[in-house]
């Protein structure tokens, strides 16, 4: 984390999000460094999910751009886009496993699309990925047969299928009990430290934030943009912005 600090893998430049004539945020700019765990924070409805969807190219920004490894995520170049997509994995808030496929088939899907591997090697890779998220022997199960936490882990296995260099998470611990969410945090830390995967995580869980985040960026609904950026421990102790301090100390701010 020391030498790679100066090596931005994602560059977010002046992003603006708008739905109809409602502006959600304007001029959001930050960078994510290689190998870093960056957490996007903010109150409900401030646009965290929207920001993440813009970063992965699902929503087009009203203005501004997102560069991943120097390539605009909204590039019209099909070949570049395909290469880019191989490098990012996403764990959606609802896990988004395909209900008609078994876990094994879910994980095998991107492998089949992007590689020319034989079914036997794909099978082996699938078993390895499922084991990495502690789902050994569940390849034949259907998503409907899983608990919420298992779904999250299976979604993570699928997101990691192609060994992406960047993983995105939308509220990974939402709806999970404290123990399961701590397990997921550990998994995230392990993957980050052993594979060096860069991670962008949207979460509210304070404990998770202090546990896993190298850096945070904080969105605010009234400011319609970023209000803080940095090490969460540092921000908690030294930030002078009452909105930031209140968030970290779980205090309800003044009523708006």
């Amino acid at each position, binding site marked *: 984390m020391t030498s790679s600090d100066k090596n931005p893998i994602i560059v977010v430049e002046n992003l603006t999000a708008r739905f109809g004539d409602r502006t959600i945020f304007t001029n959001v700019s930050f960078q994510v460094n290689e190998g870093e765990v960056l957490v996007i924070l903010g109150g409900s409805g401030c646009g965290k999910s929207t920001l993440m*969807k813009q970063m*992965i*190219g*699902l929503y087009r920004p009203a203005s501004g751009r997102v560069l991943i490894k120097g390539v605009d995520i909204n590039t019209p170049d099909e070949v570049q*886009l*395909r290469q880019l*997509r*191989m490098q*990012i994995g*996403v764990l*959606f*808030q*609802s896990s*988004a*496993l*395909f*209900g008609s496929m078994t876990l094994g088939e879910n994980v095998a*899907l*991107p492998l089949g*699309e*992007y590689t020319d591997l034989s079914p036997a090697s794909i099978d082996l890779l699938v078993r390895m990925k499922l084991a990495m998220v502690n789902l050994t022997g569940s390849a034949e199960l259907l998503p409907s047969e899983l608990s919420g936490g298992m779904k999250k882990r299976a979604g993570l296995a*699928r997101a990691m299928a192609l060994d992406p260099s960047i993983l995105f998470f939308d509220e990974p611990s939402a709806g999970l009990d404290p123990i399961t969410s701590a397990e997921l945090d550990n998994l995230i830390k392990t993957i980050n430290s052993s594979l060096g995967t860069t991670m962008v995580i949207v979460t509210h869980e304070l404990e998770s934030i202090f546990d896993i985040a190298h850096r945070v960026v904080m969105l605010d609904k009234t400011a319609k943009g970023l209000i803080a950026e940095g090490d969460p421990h540092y921000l908690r102790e030294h930030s002078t912005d009452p909105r930031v301090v209140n968030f970290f100390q779980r205090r309800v701010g003044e009523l708006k």
Partner: protein
Amino acid sequence: MPTTSRPKPDYAFQIEGQKREKIILSISGRLVLEHLEHLESEYAAFLTEMRPAELTVDVSQVEYLDSAGALALIQMEDQAKAQNLPFQLVNLTDAARRIMALVDRQALQPSPPVPKPRPWKALEQVGAVSLSVLNDFVQVLTFLGGLLIALAQSFRHPGKIRWGDTLFYMKRAGVDGLPIVGLISLLLGLIIAFMSSLQLKQFGANIYVASLLAIAMVKELGPIMTAILVAGRSGSAFAAEIGTMMVNEEVDALIIMGFDPLKFLALPKVLATMLVVPVLTLYADFFGLIGGMIVGVVGLDLTVFSYISQTQKSLNLFDLLSSLVKSAVFALLIAGIGCQRGFQVRGGAEAVGSATTSAVVAAIFLIIVTDSAFAIVLHYLR
């Protein structure tokens, strides 16, 4: 006191002091939701009757107070203030004070009315509805166009088509639909042959029941009935399936993984339906004709042979082929609209429900419209 079925309020007012002077109002008992309005009216009556110059409300005797009771006390104060009457609330217990603190006085003011959109004039409404129908129609056409392009592209790389899914949907839309399609066509054949035989018998034209039924069944009823059944069975299922995937972010996940949802989700369904509906139509024709033959043989004393040969005489290959082409077009409409309505889903479960309904209604409507177009075109084509 008028006797009502309501429980008698278990609070009481005690008034100390003279009219138009300083008055102390002591309230005792329970101030709860059920008596909120009673309390208000009694208080209003007290104010008009006594016209105090200064009012002190003593609540030391109140045994129990809920949030509605607290609201009543607050409104007492507001009402007194509105009349410029000095008001004091005394001897609040701690518990009562805590409950009173829960009530946010500002929130009691009705929020300023949201400006309602001006009610539309009839003409405007007609215009707006027409525009939205037109807009919807354009969207459906755009989607179907995209589908056809995807279909054409896939035929150049047949290996890329998801044949497994296609087979699955062929079974769903086709094989699983056989019993209902067969039964309905058989009954339809029986009914039409029977009704028409009643008329034709009078002219001794029994044998023309076979012609009538053959033409009606093969040219119109077979394709249409099959299409309507498939729209109800499969079009709705496609909309629900894709709609649910939209809600669960599964479609987002597909896009992120680099799949084209149109090719991945819609194409197998459309292809399967287009392959299977013409076959189902043939099957429906066959059962319809069997139904007619039963009536002919049992009710009209025709022989099986004469019935079949009359049927053969009234049909030609062009009729049969054109009806199959027609049913393939119907299939494209059904599956296409089912998928399009599914992809339109935003939000939650209720959106899936309305997408399903709308898929069936729109499909049936377009089937009928397309059928009319076919009738005219085929007439001049022959």
